[in-house]
């Protein structure tokens, strides 16, 4: 313990005095020590005051060393003056003399634990010998088990103490087998029945909501889109009315059932569910970090997920394909694409990183991602030490890692499937134009270098004869080559460096021929680098149109210096390279290999039975996948049904869908969770059947207005009991998609290569640093229909998130997102109320509505029906019509100037080699074909004034919230 102040010496004397008599108290204190104090010391103190570390000179491993104290020389325990005992003062964290211990606030002792320390001190601070401790532990094992919780059989911790530790049974809920609750009363929906089990009886349930609100809720939940006015008309007619009574009527029930079927069979259902799943797996179209290279084929995995949900692919199959599709059937491209799951984390290997460290990062990423995504068990806590709270030993962590030790990254061949959308590939031409420009720049600079070289000889008064002859030789060779492979070959752009290389090879000393990049100005240095790196980046982007899958294979680990181009499947997966052996890495350090481990599973779940997986190079993952996707694996089934519940109600049954461990929220309705898990398996792992169950419950039909707001605020402030439906803010993507939908601009095409919507103009052209260069600017697709696809399809670059989505809590793809946040911050107003995007949507919507209606009243009513899914009330109609009229006058005075879309951007940069500023012009390929959205100057004042109303509606709370 730090601090080390002046302390009372009398304590020491008193301490000695109480050593003598052995009493019943002494015995009780000994038991307390063995049962509580020793484990507490081991967990909280010994890491810093034990074996290899002795902070403050203090060693707490033995009574003798603890009594001797630390650098202060004062004993920690003062049984005669318990409240002044340094040990107690430190753990109470209030003393000015003794530092708070343990130092980390998160490790602070609970009140109960502090109570044990007090009682132990008061009882004389007994510290039995090691033998005596063992004897006490054995004698009392049975009794303590019953009282203190249970042990869990695992593959074993790094220490015997950890292996023998006890768990509060409730904290192990997720590891228990799923038990389907027995339901007596068949008239009530099982879900409603199970929800009442833990609901406070005095909490009244809200009435059913109205028909239009229900339609909006269900449509957003299953498609992420607003219902069309016509769909509302149909649904109201089917229910036989618009109020809650109609919804609850027999006709209403039939209508609801029909509605659910219609929505589940919509192709947009899969898009909505894919969005949820991609949040979990951290989908992005680029690799992150320094290069943020594009993952040209990632879109095929995204579409695979959409297809899986749309076809109601059995969940166990979905799991297996993502974990081991390539081992399941490498002949089926769909399976290779599915294994892209294992590639979703950010990863790169540059020449600046140690390869082994980068490989370890990949393995760590995969292990944790598998745990979080499918098992709702964060595994990374066990990377450096046995899990502090859950029965996950470090051995398990590395056993699971051994499953992936033969997993190798590859962008491997996978023919396009008939179901895949391969349209729009002609946009490839834009990349080819950019490629040609880079090659041209390099050729020009190459010629320049060759001229500079001659000057270099002249300046030194040396003869350039040998140099020139080698130049001629290389040129001759280049012509032969370029005749073979085409004019745009890189070869023709590196004559200079090849000449230098040859000079060196022919024994010319390096100072006798011109240096690399001779005579370059800062601008030329910069241009060379931009072109060279640009070509490197294009290799990844061209992959978008090629039949390759972002995937993996099983084989030996190859050695890479860097990975700066897509990695193709090697001819022999076992050579070159070596098959990795997995060891426990001490402290998680890749260079501190400890004990070897075999491939295995989470031992607390398998209970040791089927923990071993063959060590063959091929098939480890498949065996592991079968274990994950087994109907008996209680984590897997609970994990997905828990998520699904959260996707409907905004809060999952167990509050942390990525963490069923003891630090995650425990299920509020455990029986319901198990019922859903059992239903999933019984329905043949059908996710759609679960939607049907959930959405046909009374809970799902409730109004978001509480029956008694005061009682709800008191008894259920977080709406865990769902006595009313939790209103939610639209997600970032739903907001954008909905605005495009109501403006009539949304392109509902499903799947295909990513599109590029317009970003905020300044953000799009913002220079983006990547390793040694700039990434190409964000250039939107030329045509409005290409740009106005659902947000799911927008190119997702880790290094360039769309700020207008980010501000509405778009999660970063660096971490798995188990639940979307919905915070309210001021910058959202700028995006929603001020941005060009919002104005463009409003204008398009006004124009659309004017086209579709004949009277002003009808136009205004249609605006309401489009945005809110309900007709306008008379007062609202009056108010908005009046606003429209008034704004016509304001609009009449407005002047608009046509903003011409830029064709190029001039970049100011600091050149890395010289620190000098330089400029270059980046051509924006495709902008010459750019067709803008409807613009203010193309509309009359009346349309623009109606757009003012539309903008207001699109900013209103009623639009932004689903109730």
């Amino acid at each position: 313990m730090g601090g080390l102040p002046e302390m009372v010496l009398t304590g020491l004397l008193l301490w000695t005095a109480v050593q003598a008599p052995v009493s019943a108290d002494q015995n009780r204190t000994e038991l307390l020590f063995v049962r509580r104090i020793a484990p507490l010391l081991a967990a909280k103190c010994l890491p810093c005051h034990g074996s290899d570390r002795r902070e403050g000179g203090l060693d707490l491993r033995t009574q003798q060393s603890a009594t001797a104290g630390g650098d202060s020389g004062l004993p920690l325990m003062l049984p005669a003056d318990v409240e002044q005992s340094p040990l107690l003062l430190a753990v109470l964290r209030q003393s000015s003399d003794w530092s708070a211990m343990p130092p980390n606030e998160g490790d602070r002792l609970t009140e109960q634990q502090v109570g044990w320390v007090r009682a132990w001190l008061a009882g004389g601070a007994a510290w039995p010998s090691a033998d005596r401790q063992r004897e006490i532990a054995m004698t009392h094992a049975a009794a303590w088990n019953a009282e203190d919780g249970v042990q869990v059989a695992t593959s074993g911790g790094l220490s015997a103490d950890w292996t023998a530790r006890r768990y509060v049974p409730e904290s192990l809920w997720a590891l228990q087998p799923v038990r389907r609750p027995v339901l007596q009363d068949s008239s009530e929906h099982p879900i409603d029945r199970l929800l009442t089990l833990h609901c406070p009886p005095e909490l009244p349930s809200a009435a059913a909501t109205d028909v239009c609100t229900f339609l909006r809720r269900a449509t957003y939940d299953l498609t992420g889109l607003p219902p069309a006015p016509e769909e509302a008309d149909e649904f109201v007619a089917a229910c036989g009315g618009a109020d809650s009574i109609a919804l609850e009527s027999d006709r209403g029930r039939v209508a609801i059932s029909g509605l659910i079927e219609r929505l589940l069979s919509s192709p947009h259902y899969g898009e909505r569910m894919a969005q949820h799943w991609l949040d979990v797996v951290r989908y992005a179209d680029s690799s992150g970090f320094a290069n943020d290279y594009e993952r040209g084929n990632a879109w095929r995995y995204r579409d695979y997920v959409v297809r899986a949900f749309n076809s109601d692919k059995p969940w166990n199959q979905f799991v297996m394909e993502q974990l081991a599709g390539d081992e399941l059937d490498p002949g089926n491209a769909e399976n290779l694409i599915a294994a892209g799951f294992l590639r979703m984390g950010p990863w790169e290997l540059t020449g600046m990183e140690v390869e082994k460290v980068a490989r370890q990062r990949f393995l760590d990423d995969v292990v944790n991602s598998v745990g979080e995504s499918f098992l709702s068990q964060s595994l990374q806590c066990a990377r450096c030490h046995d899990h502090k709270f859950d029965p996950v030993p470090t051995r398990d962590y590395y056993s699971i890692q051994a499953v992936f030790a033969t997993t190798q990254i590859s962008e491997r061949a996978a023919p396009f499937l008939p179901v895949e959308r391969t349209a729009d590939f002609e946009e490839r031409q834009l990349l080819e134009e950019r490629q040609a420009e880079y090659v041209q720049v390099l050729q020009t600079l190459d010629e320049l270098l060759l001229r500079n070289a001659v000057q270099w000889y002249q300046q030194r008064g040396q003869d350039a004869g040998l140099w020139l002859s080698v130049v001629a030789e290389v040129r001759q060779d280049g012509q032969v080559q370029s005749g073979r492979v085409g004019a745009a070959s890189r070869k023709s752009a590196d004559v200079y460096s090849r000449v230098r290389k040859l000079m060196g090879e022919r024994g010319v000393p390096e100072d006798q021929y011109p240096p690399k990049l001779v005579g370059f100005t800062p601008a030329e240095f910069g241009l060379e680098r931009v072109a060279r790196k640009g070509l490197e980046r294009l290799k990844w982007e061209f992959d978008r149109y090629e039949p390759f899958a972002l995937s993996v294979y099983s084989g030996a680990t190859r050695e890479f210096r860097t990975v700066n181009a897509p990695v193709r499947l090697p001819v022999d997966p076992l050579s070159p390279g070596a098959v990795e052996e997995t060891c426990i890495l001490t402290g998680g350090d890749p260079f501190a290999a400890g004990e070897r481990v075999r491939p295995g599973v989470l031992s607390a779940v398998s209970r040791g039975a089927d923990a071993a997986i063959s060590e063959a190079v091929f098939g480890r993952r498949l065996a592991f996948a079968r274990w994950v996707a087994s109907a008996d694996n209680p984590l897997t089934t609970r994990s997905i049904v828990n998520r699904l519940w959260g996707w409907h109600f905004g809060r999952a049954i167990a509050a942390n869908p990525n963490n069923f461990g003891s630090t995650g929220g425990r299920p509020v309705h455990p029986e319901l969770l198990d019922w859903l898990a059992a239903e999933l398996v019984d329905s043949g792992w059908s996710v759609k059947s679960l939607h049907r169950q959930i959405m046909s419950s009374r809970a799902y039909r409730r109004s978001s207005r509480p029956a008694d707001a005061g009682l709800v605020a008191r008894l259920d402030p977080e709406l865990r009991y769902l006595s009313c439906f939790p209103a939610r803010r639209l997600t970032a993507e739903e907001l954008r998609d909905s605005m495009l939908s109501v403006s009539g601009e949304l392109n509902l095409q499903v799947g295909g290569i990513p599109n590029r919507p317009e970003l905020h103009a300044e953000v799009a052209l913002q220079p983006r640093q990547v390793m040694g260069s700039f990434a190409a600017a964000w250039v939107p697709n030329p045509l409005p229909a290409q740009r106005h696809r659902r947000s799911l399809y927008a190119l997702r670059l880790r290094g360039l998130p769309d700020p207008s989505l980010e501000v509405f809590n778009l999660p970063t793809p660096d971490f798995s997102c188990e639940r979307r946040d919905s915070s309210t911050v001021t910058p959202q107003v700028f995006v929603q109320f001020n941005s060009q995007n919002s104005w463009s949507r409003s204008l398009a919507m006004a124009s659309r509505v004017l086209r579709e209606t004949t009277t002003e009243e009808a136009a205004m009513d249609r605006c309401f029906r489009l945005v809110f899914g309900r007709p306008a009330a008379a007062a609202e109609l009056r108010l908005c019509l009046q606003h429209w009229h008034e704004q016509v006058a304001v609009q009449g005075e407005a002047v608009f100037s046509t903003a011409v879309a830029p064709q190029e951007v001039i970049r100011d940069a600091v050149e890395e080699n010289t620190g000098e500023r330089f400029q270059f012009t980046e051509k924006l390929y495709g902008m010459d074909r750019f067709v803008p959205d409807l613009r203010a100057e193309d509309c009359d004042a009346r349309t623009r004034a109606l757009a003012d109303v539309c903008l207001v509606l699109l900013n209103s709370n009623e639009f932004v919230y689903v109730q």
Partner: protein
Amino acid sequence: MSDVGSSCAVGRRQVVWSTAGLLTSLASSALLSAEDSVVGGMPGGPHFGNARAKNVIFLMMEGGPSHLDTFDPKPELSRRHLQQFVRSGREKSAMEAGQRYYVRSPFRFRRVGQSGADMSENWRYLAGVADELCFFRGCTVDSVNHPTAMYQMNCGNRFGGDPGLGAWICYGLGSLNQNLPGFIVLPEVSYPQGGAANWGNGFLPPQYQGTPLRARGSAIPDLHPPRGVTRLEQRKNLDLLARLNQEHADRNPGNSELQARMAGYELAFRMQAEVPELLDLSGETRQVLAQYGVGEQPTDAFGRKCLVARRLVEQGVRFVQLYSGSWDSHDYIERAHGNLIEATDRPIAGLIADLRQRGLLDSTLVVWCGEFGRTPDNGVRQGTAYGRDHNPNAMTIWLAGGGCRAGSTIGATDELGMEAVECRAHVRDLHVTLLRLLGLDDSRLTYYHAGRYKQLSQFGGKVIEPLLG
């Protein structure tokens, strides 16, 4: 809408950049509490009562400035200049391994100030405030790659996604001016490697996110509506929105989120007028502008940032981070570093002198650093002019003001400047020390996320005591 403030006492606290809206003018409108009171932060105030620093100006030299060519002279390198050797091993990256040669500094060094601090000769202005500086030569980091090293220096975690230092400090100390974001970033036109995640809020609530004021174009995108939209048109739209929202709120009583969203629109409307004033330097005297090198080349760009930083700190912004890019001099260290020093020397010296003159230096901690140092040797890059590679094991950072030990040089590197050998400390210890200077205890400044209490230092660190004044 005039009564919106009084009708939404609950919602107001959520509509935030900090913990309530934005503008200086709002402070007098009785909507918000007085400017000098602190809102938010650790309950009971900072952990340590004796801290002097209240604000931070963090000068981030992105790319990895060379300690060997700025503040840590190595005469031995001159002797070994161009000597070749080979480095290998599995623990070495491709960049570190292979044929290497030593590189001497192209700059001459001298000792400056009463304290006799080492500085290369090109720091002409900084020498004048040398006695305010506290050099630290013991800092080490884990990564040799830019974005990961940047993340570690800025957020504590190499792999990104964690809250930035400024976010933690705002979370710990609360807001001095609720009308402005507590964490403001003045980036280069091009964002650093790793992008905006360098100033993210991570798992902390979004009001702690760093707000970049962009170096070109609009400081904050969409602060204003598109051209052609008049303030009158916008005002009338806001009024209609308020009415529709009020009716909706009446139908859905007790939902504070709805109220919060409504208040946000009014605050945003007023900000449109106020933010540009903050960035307008026309009210500064000619003498002050000259002190920062504003209006002259090559100091104008960074000089403006330094001056804006002072203005923001005067307004109570907790943490201002300034970026100077392109210190990654693998080649031509003489030209590259020479130019960068020239562009930043006068602005930085001007900032420190100005803060001192205004009595702000004591309460403002100034930090100068990069994401790592540079090597005494270089790879054979087909030889032109000499540069240096990345070095995670040695770097120089310096502090000024805020209760640091001014006029001192702490720690030392080996005779070649390859490794820190004296007072060696990991960057996590530097973070703990910076927090300590602000009165915050890293081990108590925690936030529960993903199953555990997280902290800036990741797993705890130690205060580097010699850096404290």
